[in-house]
């Protein structure tokens, strides 16, 4: 009976476990704890764009996907860890978040994270590649453009609105685009929306 060995194995496992948990805890200290539901963003504009798209384009299901996807953050709560270490916040803010280099699973996850905790990503340059969806916003009468990505199984999709720099023309609806812009949020009425501003097409 090797119960003594078992005891040693158990102790080692316990220590490993503590190490694991501590490693995970280490970066949490720099986390901003935001539990305020008011700060959560609802990517709503494509809901209205979705309903408009149904009028303007025959492919209602595709637009509905985009509409569904962009309301991801409606009920999501909780604190998000700041991707940047507190110390060099401003330096990292300028660092490019290049989603084009990531696999579809991680892109989807990262966009989801951006939608549920936009304050952590404000000011970052984001580059993403997806399908451009154009829709008319009933409230303002303007046409909004979003870059939409699908997850690995292509059953869910979500996207971020982008506003190009002055003088640039918007791409065609349903075309594949690569967009780079600064992630930011803006208020419209009671809702907060996220978008990539000063964007360029790449």
């Amino acid at each position: 009976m090797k119960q003594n060995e078992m005891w040693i194995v158990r102790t080692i496992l316990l220590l490993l476990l503590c190490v694991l948990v501590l490693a995970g805890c280490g970066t949490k200290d720099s986390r901003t704890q935001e539990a305020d539901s008011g700060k959560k963003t609802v990517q709503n504009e494509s809901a209205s764009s979705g309903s408009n798209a149904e009028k303007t384009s025959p492919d209602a299901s595709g637009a509905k996907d985009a509409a569904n996807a962009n309301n991801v953050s409606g009920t999501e709560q909780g604190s998000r860890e700041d991707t940047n270490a507190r110390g060099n916040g401003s330096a990292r803010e300028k660092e490019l978040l290049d989603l084009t280099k990531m696999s579809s699973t991680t892109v989807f996850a990262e966009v989801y994270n951006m939608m549920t905790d936009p304050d952590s990503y404000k000011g970052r340059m984001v580059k993403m590649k997806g399908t451009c969806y154009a829709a008319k916003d009933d409230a303002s009468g303007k046409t909004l453009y979003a870059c939409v990505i699908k997850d690995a199984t292509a059953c869910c999709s979500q996207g971020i609105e982008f506003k190009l720099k002055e003088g640039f023309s918007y791409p065609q609806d349903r075309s594949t685009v690569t967009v780079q812009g600064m992630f930011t949020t803006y208020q419209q009425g009671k809702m907060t929306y996220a978008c990539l501003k000063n964007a360029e097409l790449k």
Partner: protein
Amino acid sequence: MSLIMTLIEKLAFYLQYPFVRYALVVGLLIAVVSSLLGVTLVLRHFSYIGDGLSHVAFGAMSVAIVLKLSHRMFLILPVTVLCAVILLKSGQGRKVKGDAAVAMMSVGALAFGYLTVNVAGASANVSGDVCSTLFGSTSILTLTAAEVTLCAVLSAAALVLFLLLYNRLFALTFDENFARVCGINTELYNLILAIIIAVIIVLAMNLVGALLVSALIIFPTMAAMRLFESFRAVTVASAVISVICALVGILVSVLAGTPVGSTIVIADALAFGLSMPAARLRGGMS
């Protein structure tokens, strides 16, 4: 060689993102505790309970979504624990009695959950939430910091409990009647076990989704049982296999862009598939 270098570079690239690191830490912890739980459940012929409880948890999550709860776990955990206690109590350890009850609860909760979310769901992203909850396509990568902490703490607590109760659990799993004759309070331990089962199922849902939770519980144990003969060896092997498969699954899905839950389960299935020829080889050699 260059392929490996590219892979390592890509991995390093991904690992700089906190959400990937957290997914790995939490995912591996969950893999360990669910495989340890699996050893007890499989040997007591309770494997189906994992499936039933995960569907109940899905139903509870749907209600939480509809009610726009800020911390869904506060609803999901108690509901699942309650159902676990009810199921195990009514079964009284006899597998035949409980299976119909579990099946009804399981299917009813799944249908209820999906109906609730569709009819009363406030979020327009119904398919996204449901998809992720059922199949775990990206759920481990999109945990909030609070959820990460909760998952890590609960997994750690469950692991410590398993280590402390290892001998008791062995006696109970091997021969519950004998344990009772010895004077062990089997009712109490079954209650504790029910609570642990519920908690681990809810955690495991974050990793592979409600529909695939059973895989996390069953495959590592079955693979380990083919390879080893003593309870201690089976337990340790089960945990090791589960961790390796979860690690491989998460890394492959992150690198190749596949859904996380299914990739982990495929890795587990492969491990089980490989365990059979491996066992034969071992049998041939010894």
